[in-house]
């Protein structure tokens, strides 16, 4: 600390010790937040780095760390196992991971032996995949009773059922492997037909159809097999598979056409529905019970009146802020008699002001809970007004007509800018470059000065309109030039040979489209 500062302190009579501590604190804090210099960077280099140190890859010249395993490495042991799906009890060996609990005992051989005995899994985990299908079996008596068939011998039926069992009802394979002496030419449909008829017959014999449970019934009906139909289906599938390219193309074309028709139909339906919705009157949802008495009817009438007023006010209030004056609020001002009541709106008045908003939505709200006698009159009055505050202003200010306003040069602003400014500065002129460049010439032609000599609000407004029109004119002129240029090019190309007409035509159409826009504005 310099001596000059201490002198000043002495003069001011400030105790140097108390001050010394206070200003020192912030730098101390700052020092604490400074990051520690990484190991690989020299101090000089680190000092050069600013606050946003660039990412510097720090290369450390040392060996990789020893891997740190989370737990101890579990031992794996070769174990024999038996597969319960096998009948011969063959033993195979596989490696099994011992769990960590047994690790501790793994060191001594005796312990390991003990573990091996306990660790043998009770059930081989893959045995559960050994699934056999439940196939119907028939007895000799059953066969003799219902299963006799002239075409099928008992041996052949047995052979069929054996194959089905062997190949788990994979019909393709069963038909492929079917080799019964003398009957090699059986088709898959023959085999299926026989199998299902056998199943149905046996099921029916065991439990009559009427006695079957729902599951059995479903199975029974699922077993129904129509051979002719199946043969016909296969024939069609085959036909479908061997279509010629022309047929495939034709079919794709038809599908596309169908989709198109379907889509347009869908669209038509949607449009029609929308139209119906528009024509439809809104459905009433509430109950009419509340309006059946004379009192209820009166409330309803009042509510409708209120909502009507609100609607009207809203529609007028929307376009400009002047609406407040133009509004036919004379009745309201007349009824709001006492200024004292108006200047101090009660909370109940505010609450009732909100009620029409509710009634407008369709559900008829109860009139506000009756306040004390004094504010009753005032509350009904202010209920129709948007805000009680406006009410207050209106009662004080004399209503002016438009002519009067013009006479007194009275204007209304949405938002007044603070400070003093020239009105010309606030003019809303087009920003386009072409306008800024060319407007002085046009203005001179029209004999209008660049700077308005009398910038009243009216002249400013007129000037703005003029400027906009000039800008639009310039835009149109530019488009016209462009189109003319294109037409020239187009004609020249046509003269040379019409091979590129298509492209320029599309360009032309683009131009005409874009040139339409400014015209519309005008």
């Amino acid at each position, binding site marked *: 600390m310099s001596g000059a500062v201490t002198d000043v302190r002495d003069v001011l009579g400030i105790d140097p010790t108390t001050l010394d501590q206070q200003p020192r604190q912030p730098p101390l804090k700052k020092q604490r937040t400074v990051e520690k210099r990484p190991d690989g960077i020299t101090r000089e280099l680190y000092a050069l780095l600013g606050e946003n140190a660039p990412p510097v890859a720090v290369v450390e010249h040392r060996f990789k760390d020893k891997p740190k395993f989370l737990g101890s490495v579990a031992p794996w042991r070769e174990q024999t196992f038996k597969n319960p799906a096998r009948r011969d009890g063959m033993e195979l*060996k*596989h*490696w099994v991971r011992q769990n960590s609990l047994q690790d501790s005992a793994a060191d001594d051989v005796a312990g390991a032996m003990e573990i091996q005995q306990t660790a043998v899994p009770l059930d081989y985990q893959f045995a559960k995949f050994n699934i056999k299908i439940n196939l119907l079996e028939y007895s000799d008596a059953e066969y003799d009773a219902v299963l006799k068939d002239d075409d099928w011998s008992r041996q052949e039926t047995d052979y069929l059922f054996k194959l089905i069992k062997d190949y788990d009802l*994979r019909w393709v*394979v069963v*038909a492929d*492997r079917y080799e019964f002496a003398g009957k090699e030419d059986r088709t898959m449909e023959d085999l299926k037909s026989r199998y299902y008829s056998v199943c149905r017959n046996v099921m029916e014999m065991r439990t009559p159809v009427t006695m079957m449970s729902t599951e059995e019934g479903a199975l029974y009906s699922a077993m129904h097999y129509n051979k002719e139909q199946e043969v016909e289906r296969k024939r069609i599938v085959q036909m479908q*598979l*061997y279509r010629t390219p022309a*047929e495939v193309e034709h079919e794709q074309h038809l599908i596309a056409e169908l989709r198109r028709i379907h889509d347009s139909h869908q669209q038509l339906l949607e449009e029609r529905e929308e139209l119906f919705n528009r024509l439809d009157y809104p459905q009433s949802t509430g109950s009419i019970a509340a309006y059946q008495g004379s009192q209820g009817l009166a409330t309803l009438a009042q509510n409708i009146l209120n909502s009507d007023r609100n609607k009207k006010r809203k529609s007028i209030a929307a376009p400009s802020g002047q609406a407040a004056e133009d509004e036919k609020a004379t009745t309201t001002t007349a009824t709001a008699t006492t200024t004292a009541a108006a200047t101090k709106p009660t909370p109940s008045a505010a609450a009732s002001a909100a009620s029409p908003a509710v009634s407008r939505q369709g559900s008829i709200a109860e009139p506000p809970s009756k306040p004390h006698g004094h504010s009753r009159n005032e509350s009904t009055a202010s209920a129709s007004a948007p805000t009680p505050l406006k009410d207050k202003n209106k009662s004080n200010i004399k209503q002016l007509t438009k002519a009067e306003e013009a006479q007194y040069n009275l204007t209304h602003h949405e938002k007044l800018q603070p400070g003093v400014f020239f009105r010309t500065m606030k003019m809303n002129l087009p920003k386009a470059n072409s306008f800024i460049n060319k407007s002085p010439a046009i203005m001179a032609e029209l004999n209008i000065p660049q700077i308005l000599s009398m910038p009243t609000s009216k002249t400013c407004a007129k000037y703005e309109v003029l400027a906009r029109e000039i800008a639009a004119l310039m835009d149109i002129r530019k488009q016209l030039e462009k189109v003319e240029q294109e037409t020239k090019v187009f004609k020249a190309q046509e003269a040379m040979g019409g091979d590129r007409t298509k492209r320029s035509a599309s360009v032309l159409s683009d131009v005409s489209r874009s040139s339409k826009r400014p015209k519309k504005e005008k």
Partner: protein
Amino acid sequence: MASTPQMTGVLPPTTKPAELEYGGDEVSALVLDPGTGTTRCGFAGEDTPKTCVPTYYGIIPDPEDQKYFGKLKIGENPINSVVDGMEIRNPMSDGVVENWEVATEIWRHCIEYRLSSRVEEHPLLVTEPIWNPLKKREKTTEIVFEDFNAPAYFLVKSAVCESFANSKPSALVVDMGHAYTSVTPIIDGIPLRKGSERTPLAGQHLNNQLRHQFGELGIRMAPWLTLKSKSPYTDLATAPPLRTKDFGFEPHQSFLDLQQDRFIHEFKECVSETWPEAKTFPADINNLPDNFRGIADKAFEFPDGYQRRFGIDRFLAPESLFNPSVSPKALTGDLPKGIAEMIKDSIDHLDADIRANMLNNIVVVGGTSLLYRINERLNHELMTMFPGPRVKIHSPGQIPERKYSAWLGGSILASCGAFHQLWISKQEYDEVGANIIERRAK
């Protein structure tokens, strides 16, 4: 753990894989995939075979040897070294094992010498072609249990493995191998007999076609092994004399053929290409029409230094796979069907309901399917044959996966937990005999 970056997708050693996502249960099984060209062997659960040994073997005939009638030379190096009197033979014929004594030796060589494993300690999964007759299947079973003394064994169709390797339970498998191209429909892992087709239009056929083509051009097909040095030349008329090594004996013709196959194989890999569309292939390649638009030439240097650019003629041999009538070397006997024709035939044999599914799941594998643009051509032909249904060809992008698809599928199968109930155990074999294979592995 932040300091030890870990590969994504690899579980740390301390975490057990979730049981639902991992259906594997490795029982240290071996997978053997014997083919006519090579025999693939490795441990189940791995993604490529550990060893790939040529099935061709060398033999120095010796009538006094009772078992093999000569001294056997098995493996890549022995069969490619020049030995006096060594003949090259193949124990396979028609895609299935013919000479059981030698085939057993080759399998044993794969497992014991190449994998350094003891056969009797590991369950063994062997693949077979779909047309393997019952006699041969029983014989395989016998060898595995009697000679190898394996604890468990299973025989599975290679087409099934191939569809599994492409993660498809149902597929139409087109396997373009060395001796045969086969088409097999697979439904839920079961091959169908009625739609299965095969044709000898495969790798060996291409070798023969190319050999004939070179012979007609007058190219001296001296293999690398017999040449002392080479000098580049481009005109056959002014070819410098061959500078061959003097072995002191004449190597056997079968040995020379095998050596020729080596550079022919290279030619197949580098120069041969499939013409992409059937209908635009010129009818007469010596008389190209004026408006014909070819595909760029490719150059090849033969072992003796002859350099030549191959134009449309490099498409000829692969074209014969699809259209056997254009083969440079006329085929004897009945003209076999082209590969696309064969696929169509196979589809026509199937039930109408599964045809669309099969066409949508065509799996193309095998070394010959690596021929440049062959899948494009196949797709094009099938699309023309079946314009209506969706035709989709699935072919692994990785070359080893394409070449060793059958082995890979076997590896997946043998390491799958749900598969272990299917193994035929030694005990079952002892009880029933070799016929058990027909009962268990249908």
